[in-house]
C-alpha cells in the first residue's frame, strides 16, 4: 500500500496543488508572481516524487486500490517526468511572458496544473472510461488556456475551432468506448487484450469499430494527417507559453496512452501498422509542406510539430508489441519537448508586448543585439532539424534505426528525406537571425525566469543527447 502511494504521489501532488492554487486565486490571496512560483514548486515537487518512483521499483497495477483502472510502468513514469518537466518550464517562462502581456490571472497557473493532472492520469490509464475522463480534464483545461486572452480575436477563433473539433473527437472516443463495452462487457485494457489474444482482432467487429474510433481520437490529439488542420490555427492563436505546453506535454501524454493502447496485443498493433505507415508518411510530408509556406514562426513551429508527430508515428510503427519498452518514443518526446519548450521560452521574452514579433522577418539581426538568445534558439532549431550533437539528432537516429530494425526501410528513408526538407524552415529563422542587420534592439522588460529557462533547456539539449538508451 505504501508502494502504491509513492507511485501515485506525483498525481496527488499535482491534483492537490491545482485545487489549492484555484482556491487561493479565488479568494485573491495570491499575487500573480507568487502563483507562478507556487506552480513551479508543485511541478518540481511532483517531478522529484516521480523521479523517486521511477528509481524505486517494478510496474504495479493498482489492483486493490483502483480496480485495475490505473497502471504504472517505466514507460508511464518517464512520460510523467517529461510532462512534469514541461509544466515546470512552462510556469517558468509564463512568468516572464506575463510581465509584458498583462492578461495573466492567478487561475492560469492553476489551469496548467490541472491540465498536467489530466495528462498524468492519462498516461497511467488502463481502462477506457478513466482515459476518457483524464482526456477531458486535460482538454478542458487546455481549451480555457488557449482562450485565456479574452480580448484577443485570434485567441477566440483558436479556442472555438479547437473546442468544436475537440468535441467532435471526444464524441468519437466515447463512441469507441461504447462499442467496445458493447462487444466485451468491459472497458478494461486487460480484458481487451485477452479478447484480442483469444479471438483475434479482426474477428471481433465491435472491437474493430471501437478501436478505430478511439485511435482516431488519439490521432486528432497528436495532429496526425488528416486530422492536423486545426493545429496551425490553434497554436497561432494561443499565447506562447500555452502553445509550448500544448505542443509538448499534451503530445507526450496522448502518445503515452496511444502507445499503451496500441501495444495491448500484437494483433491489434499488426492490424494498424499499414494505416499508421501511410498516416506517418502523409503526416511528415504534409507537415513539411505546410511549414514551408508559413511566414509566422508560431505557425511554422505548429506545422513542424505535425512533422514530429510523423516521426513519432514511425517509432510507433517500429516498436514491437511483444516486448514493448517505448524507450525510442520517450527519447524522441524528451528531445522534442526540450527543443520546442526552449524555443517557446525564448519567444516568450523576445516577442514583446502583445507578441508583436511573430514573423520570420521580425527576428532579423537578433544575433547582433542578443547573441546568447540567438545562439540558444539556433541550438533548439538545430536540435529540431536533427543536427548532431543535439538531442534531436539522437532522437531521429534512434527512430530511424528502430524503423530499419523493424524492417520498415521505406519509412526510414522517407524519414531522412523529410528531415532534410525540414531544414528549409528551420534554417530560415537562423538565416534571419544571423545574416541580417538588426533594425531594433529587441529589448524587453523581462524577468530572469524565461532566459534562465532557455539556458537550462539549451544545456539539456546536449545533456539528453549524451543519455544512452537501448532500442
Amino acid at each position, binding site marked *: 500500500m505504501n508502494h502504491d502511494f509513492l507511485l501515485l504521489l506525483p498525481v496527488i501532488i499535482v491534483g492537490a496543488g491545482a485545487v489549492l492554487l484555484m482556491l487561493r486565486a479565488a479568494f485573491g490571496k495570491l499575487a500573480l508572481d507568487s502563483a507562478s512560483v507556487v506552480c513551479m514548486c508543485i511541478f518540481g515537487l511532483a517531478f522529484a516524487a516521480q523521479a523517486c518512483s521511477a528509481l524505486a521499483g517494478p510496474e504495479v497495477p493498482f489492483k486493490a486500490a483502483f480496480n485495475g483502472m490505473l497502471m504504472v510502468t517505466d514507460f508511464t513514469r518517464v512520460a510523467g517526468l517529461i510532462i512534469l518537466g514541461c509544466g515546470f518550464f512552462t510556469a517558468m517562462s509564463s512568468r516572464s511572458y506575463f510581465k509584458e502581456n498583462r492578461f495573466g490571472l492567478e487561475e492560469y497557473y492553476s489551469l496548467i496544473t490541472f491540465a498536467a493532472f489530466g495528462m498524468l492520469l492519462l498516461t497511467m490509464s488502463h481502462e477506457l472510461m478513466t482515459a476518457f475522463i483524464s482526456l477531458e480534464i486535460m482538454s478542458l483545461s487546455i481549451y480555457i488556456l488557449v482562450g485565456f486572452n479574452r480580448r484577443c480575436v485570434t485567441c477566440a477563433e483558436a479556442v472555438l475551432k479547437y473546442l468544436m473539433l475537440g468535441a467532435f473527437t471526444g464524441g468519437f472516443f466515447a463512441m469507441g468506448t461504447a462499442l467496445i463495452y458493447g462487444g466485451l462487457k468491459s472497458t478494461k485494457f486487460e480484458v481487451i487484450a485477452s479478447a484480442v489474444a483469444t479471438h483475434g482482432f479482426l474477428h471481433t467487429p465491435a472491437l474493430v469499430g471501437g478501436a478505430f474510433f478511439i485511435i482516431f481520437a488519439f490521432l486528432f490529439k497528436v495532429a496526425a494527417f488528416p486530422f492536423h488542420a486545426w493545429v496551425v490555427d490553434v497554436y497561432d492563436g494561443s499565447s506562447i507559453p500555452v502553445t509550448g505546453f500544448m505542443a509538448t506535454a499534451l503530445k507526450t501524454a496522448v502518445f503515452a496512452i496511444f502507445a499503451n493502447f496500441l501495444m495491448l496485443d500484437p494483433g491489434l498493433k499488426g492490424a494498424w501498422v499499414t494505416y499508421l505507415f501511410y498516416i506517418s508518411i502523409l503526416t511528415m510530408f504534409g507537415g513539411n*509542406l505546410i511549414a514551408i509556406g508559413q511566414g509566422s514562426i508560431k505557425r511554422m513551429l505548429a506545422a513542424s510539430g505535425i512533422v514530429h508527430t510523423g516521426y513519432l508515428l514511425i517509432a510507433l510503427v517500429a516498436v514491437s508489441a511483444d516486448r514493448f519498452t517505448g524507450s525510442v518514443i520517450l527519447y524522441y518526446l524528451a528531445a522534442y519537448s526540450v527543443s520546442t519548450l526552449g524555443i517557446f521560452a525564448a519567444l516568450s521574452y523576445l516577442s514583446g508586448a502583445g507578441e508583436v514579433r511573430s514573423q520570420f522577418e521580425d527576428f532579423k539581426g537578433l544575433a547582433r543585439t542578443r547573441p546568447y538568445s540567438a545562439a540558444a534558439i539556433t541550438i533548439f532549431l538545430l536540435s529540431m532539424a536533427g543536427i548532431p550533437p543535439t538531442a534531436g539528432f539522437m532522437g531521429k537516429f534512434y527512430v530511424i534505426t528502430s524503423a530499419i530494425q523493424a524492417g520498415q526501410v521505406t519509412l526510414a528513408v522517407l524519414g531522412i528525406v523529410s528531415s532534410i526538407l525540414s531544414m528549409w524552415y528551420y534554417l530560415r529563422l537562423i538565416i534571419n537571425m544571423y545574416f541580417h542587420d538588426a533594425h531594433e534592439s529587441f529589448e524587453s522588460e523581462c524577468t530572469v525566469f524565461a532566459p534562465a529557462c532557455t539556458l537550462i533547456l539549451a544545456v539539456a539539449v546536449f545533456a539528453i543527447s549524451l543519455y544512452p538508451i537501448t532500442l
Partner: protein
Amino acid sequence: MEQTAHFYLGLIPLMPLIGAVLIGLMHVTTCRGHRFPDKLYAVLACIGPVLACIMAFQVFTILKTLPVEHRILVHKVFTWFSVGELNISMGFMADPLSSLMILFVTFIGSLIHIYSIGYMADDKTYAKFFGYMNLFLGSMLILVLGDGPVVMFVGWEGVGLCSYLLISYYNEDSSNVLAGNKAFIVNRIGDLGFVLGMAFLFWAIGAQGFDYISLKANAHLLPQATAMLVCLLLFVGATGKSAQIPLYVWLPDAMAGPTPVSALIHAATMVTAGVYMVARFSFLYVTVPDAGEIVAWIGILTALVSAIYGMFQDDIKKVLAYSTVSQLGYMFAGVGVAAYSAGIFHVFTHAFFKALLFLGAGSVIYAMHHEQNIWKMGGLKKKLPVTYLTMLVGALALSGCPPFSGFFSKDEILFSAFASGHKAIWAIGVLVAGMTAYYTFRMIFVVFHGEPHSKSSYDHAHEPPPVMTVPLVLLAIGALLAGFFNLPELFGGHQMVSSWLEPSVLDHHAHAEASTEWMVMGSSVLAFVIGFSIAYVKFAKGAQLPVFTGFAKFAYNKFYIDELYDMLFVQPYKSIGAIIWKDFDPNVTDGPRKAISWLYGAIGDAFRLVQTGYVRVYAIYMVIGLSLISLLISQTLN
C-alpha cells in the same frame, strides 16, 4: 629506474603542452580586458621546456646505464584507436636516436624560449607567442618520441600547424600571412606523401603491429617494389618538412616569422624532422639502396642550389635560411648514402650553430630596430661585441673550420659519401663547403666589419640585454664543442655519437685507408680556406651594395623557381578553381538544386491554400480521412 624513465617519457611532451594550454587559456580569457603581466607569461613559458629538458637528461642517463641491446624503452599511455587490424596506441619510445634528439631539442628549445623573453618584449600579443612556442615544442617532442608512424604524424602535423601560426605571427602584414599560407600548403603536399607512404606500409606489413619495433621486425617481408614506393613517398614527406628540392620554396619565405621562431623551428628542430624520419626508417631504406641514392642526390643538389642562392642574398635571415636548406641537403646526402649516424650528428651540431647564428642575427636585428638588409648594417663589431664573437663562432662552425663542430659532422658526411663510392656527391659537397664559407663570411664581414652604411641606426645600436646574450654564449660553447662528441678515430676519438646511435639506425660503415680520410679532410679544409679568402678579399674592407648582372641576377632571383611554380601550378589551379566557382557551380551543380527547391516551395505555397481557416473544412478533412480508412478496413475484413 626504468619505471622512472617510463614516467618521464609520458611527461616530457606533456610539460610544454600543459604550458601551451595554460598560457592559451589565460590569454584568451584576458585578451580583451586586463592583461596579466608579461613576466608571468615568460616564466610560465620557460618552465615547461626546462622541465622537459631536465627529464630528457634523466631519460638519457637511464638509457645509458642499460646494456646496449636493451636500450629501448616503450611507454604506452593509452590505446588511441583500434579498427580492424589497425591498433594504435598513444605510445612513446626512447631509444638512442630519440633520446639524443629530445636532448638537444629541449635544450635548444629552452634556450630559445629564454632568449625570446628579451626579443619579444613589448610585443602586443606576448602570451600568444609563447603559447604557440610551447605548443610547438610539445608537438616536436611527440614527433620525436612517438613509438610509431601514426604518433609521429600527430607531432608532424602539430609542428606544421605551429610553424604556420608563427610564420604568420605578425599578421598585420599580408605578405607574412601569405608566407604562412605558402609554408602550410607546400607542407601539405609533402604530408600527402607521408600519409600515402604510411598507408602502403600498413597495407603491406602493418597487420602485425604498426609501431617501429614491429615494423622493423617485419621489414624483411616487404616486397622490393613496395619498399621502394614507401621509401620514396616517405621521402616526399621529408622534402616538404625539411625543405628539399622540389618543395624547398617555403623555407626562405618562412623567415617572415619572429627570429626566435626561425631559430627554433626553421633551423634547429622542425626542419630536421625529415632527416630524423629517414633515419628512423633506416630499416626500410637499407633494403632499397636505390631509394637512398635518390635521397642522397636530391640532398646534395638542394645543398648546391641553395648555396648558390645564399651567395646573393641581401637579407641577413634569408642568407641563413638558404644556408639551412643547404645544410639540410648535406644531412640528406648523409642519410642517403646510409651514413645515418653522420646525418643525425650533423642535425645535432647544426642545431647548435644555426640556432646560434639565427639568434645572433636576431640580436643584430633587435639592435638595428628591425632592419634586416645587410647592406644597411656594417661596422657593428664595436657596438655588439658579444653578438659578434658568438656569431663568429657560429660562422666558423657553419663553414666547417676545424676544430669547430660543423667541421667534424660535415666531414663525416663527405667522408662517408666518398668511401661508399659516391664520388660525384662528394665533389659537389666539397664545392658547396667552399660556397658555404664564402656566403657565411660575406655576411659576417658586411654586417660587422667595414664602415657603417647607415649612420643613424649605427649610433642607436646597442648590445641586447643579458637574457638574450647568455643563450648566445651557451650556444656558442655548444657550437664550439659539440663536434668533439663524435671525434673520429683519426684524432684519437671514439665516435661517441655514432656508437651511441648504433642500436637505432642500421649504419653502413664505409672503411677506407687513413690516407683517404686525410685527403677528404684536407680537401674540405681547402674548400673552406678558398671560400673564406674570397669573402675576405671582397668584403672585409667594406663593400657597397652590389649590382647583379648575368648569372648573379639569375641566382639573386632564385632561378625564378617561385615564378615557375606559380606559372605551372598555382595559376592553373586558380583558374580551374575560378571556372568551377564561376561557371560550373552556379550553372551545372546548382541547377537541379535550385529547381528542386523552387518546386518544393511552390508545392508548399499550394499546400498552404489547403489551410483555409474554416473549421468546417477541417472537419471535412477529418471525415474524409475517417471514411477512407474505414473503407480500407472493411476491405481487409472481407
